[in-house]
């Protein structure tokens, strides 16, 4: 099962960017600042500022990824899917929502926040902005390399469906302190994986699923961060 990585975009502790704009490894420890609308979209987008942080980070990463892959503009809806791996999901939004629900016995529960207590809501935000009509879901896995689970899923979906492309990546805010781990790279990072190399931009290279292992440009990659590093053509320290 093979595909071509044609775009990469992220909102992480390293900032926000597409893969063609920097040679810095974007998956690093630190805090993530949810982007403002102007940092992602040129045009007004009234809903963006109302989104929870998790959704703004995920949507921002998807937008930058599509832009990096030359696939941001659209006129007809496109059968492109999104698979997002997440360790914590929208836990922070859940907690925020509970802070509106618990006082006053639910009388002041926030409908605006509740909508984003489903971790796949930001995928809907991305779908409607970019006309993406493929399969859209969030994966939670007991996996140290959760991002690769999304890439595996995407490559299988590409192989088993009519979708020409799938956005695969990760989205997580920094966890509550009691759950913090040493290997946390909070933020959102997505790859545009297509059945064919991109025509509008140079592809980063071919990614392949052999058994459970992921190979990029013929080399096995150990984790999602390494795959990103390989794509950006840099050594991971």
């Amino acid at each position, binding site marked *: 099962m093979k595909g071509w990585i044609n775009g990469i975009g992220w909102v992480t502790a390293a900032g926000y960017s597409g893969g063609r704009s920097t040679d810095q490894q974007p998956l690093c420890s630190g805090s993530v600042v949810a982007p403002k609308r102007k940092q992602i979209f040129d045009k007004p987008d009234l809903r963006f500022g109302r989104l929870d942080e998790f959704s703004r980070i995920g949507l921002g990463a998807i937008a930058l990824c599509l832009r990096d892959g030359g696939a941001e503009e659209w006129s007809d*809806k496109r*059968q492109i*899917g999104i698979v997002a791996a*997440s*360790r*914590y*999901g929208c*836990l922070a939004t*859940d*907690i925020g*929502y*509970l*802070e509106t*629900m*618990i006082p*006053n*016995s*639910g*009388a002041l*529960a*926030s*409908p605006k926040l*509740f*909508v984003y*207590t*489903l*971790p*796949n*809501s930001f*995928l*809907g*935000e991305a*779908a*409607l902005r*970019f*006309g*993406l*009509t*493929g*399969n*859209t*879901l*969030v*994966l*939670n*896995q*007991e*996996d140290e390399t959760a991002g690769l*689970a999304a890439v595996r899923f995407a490559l*299988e979906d590409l*192989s*088993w*469906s*009519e979708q020409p492309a799938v956005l695969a990546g990760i989205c997580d805010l920094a966890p*509550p302190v*009691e*759950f913090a781990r040493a290997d946390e790279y909070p933020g959102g990072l997505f790859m545009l994986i297509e059945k064919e190399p991109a025509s509008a931009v140079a592809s980063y290279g071919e990614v392949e699923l052999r058994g459970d292992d992921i190979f990029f440009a013929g080399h096995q990659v150990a984790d999602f961060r390494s795959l990103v590093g390989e794509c950006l053509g840099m050594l991971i320290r």
Partner: protein
Amino acid sequence: MNRVVISQIAPVTALGDGLDPLWQGLLAGKSGIAPLTRFNCENYISHYGACIDDLAVTSGGSLLDTILKRVALQLGDLPEDCRLLVASTKGEIDLLTSARRDGDDLPATVLAAPFLDKITRQFGITSKAININAACASSTIAVARAAALIAAGEADAVLVYAADLVSEFVFSGFSALQALSDQPCRPFDCQRNGLTLGEAGVAILLLSETAAQQRNETPLAYVSGWGMANDAHHVTAPARDGYGLIQACHQALSKSSIAPVDIAAINAHGTGTLYNDAMELTAFGSVFGESLPPLHGVKGSLGHCLGAAGGIEIAIGCRTLQEQILPPTVGCCDAEEAGQGKLQNVPQDISGDYLLCTNSGFGGINAAVILQRSR
């Protein structure tokens, strides 16, 4: 493509434990919807829910623990190489709510990994589990994913476990969105005005046909097709033209290599909200035209079981094909015009080999699974 068998089904719903009491309750037109006592509803627009009877909670445990055990009790042996796909939208949200209310530390099981670990241990599965979160289409997509893995020869056995609770967290949210009905919901009825929440747990074992034969397991049904599509329209409201659901249905029909006229019955999502049910009838009208088969929805009996809804409805679909009877749509007394003659609040005889089961959810996602009758 390997044939995909459904060989075991283990549901726990407001109509009891097991498929037999669920089926008999549905045929009798029973409803598990009742006034809620689990939490104080005085500030919410509904006082109704479809809760599972006798859900005991252990100290520090979640109500989902009991559901999990009651589902596991019904299952036979699982293959050693069985994979596990979980479908839950909010998992042990009752524990998170309690912890925040009491000012306690967050329980570890609010994270996916320990939650999944608990489920794998309960079922004795050795491989890593994965949770699929696609709102109310989660378990439909999990079944589709399981079928895809088996069809492609990537797995011989996959257990799908889906579960969600009636929780104050979700109840208050739907109340704040004005999406709850003040009375038990009435799917596809002209007077419908919202949904009623329900809860369920269900395990569905999918096997390759070869594995089923080796284990002497009798197919309850086959999964012959599936499709998933996003509306790309709105985060909470369905596309009025049914775009995503139409695409999902066409994909499932294509995968099954059958025509719309081959579908004997539809188990629709049928939440009882104004826009969802109208969207579904529009989509089915587009897909089936004059050949629209009998259809039904079970949420007037079971409430909307969120991430578990599709799993429960696929379980019911298997029995529907076996018995060639479509259960009534409880609460649908005066069907929407587009469904008149096809939606009944009494059981309907059906005739045919294929049943379409669909679900749609927040985030614009739609999913369709086609079941094939086992003879």
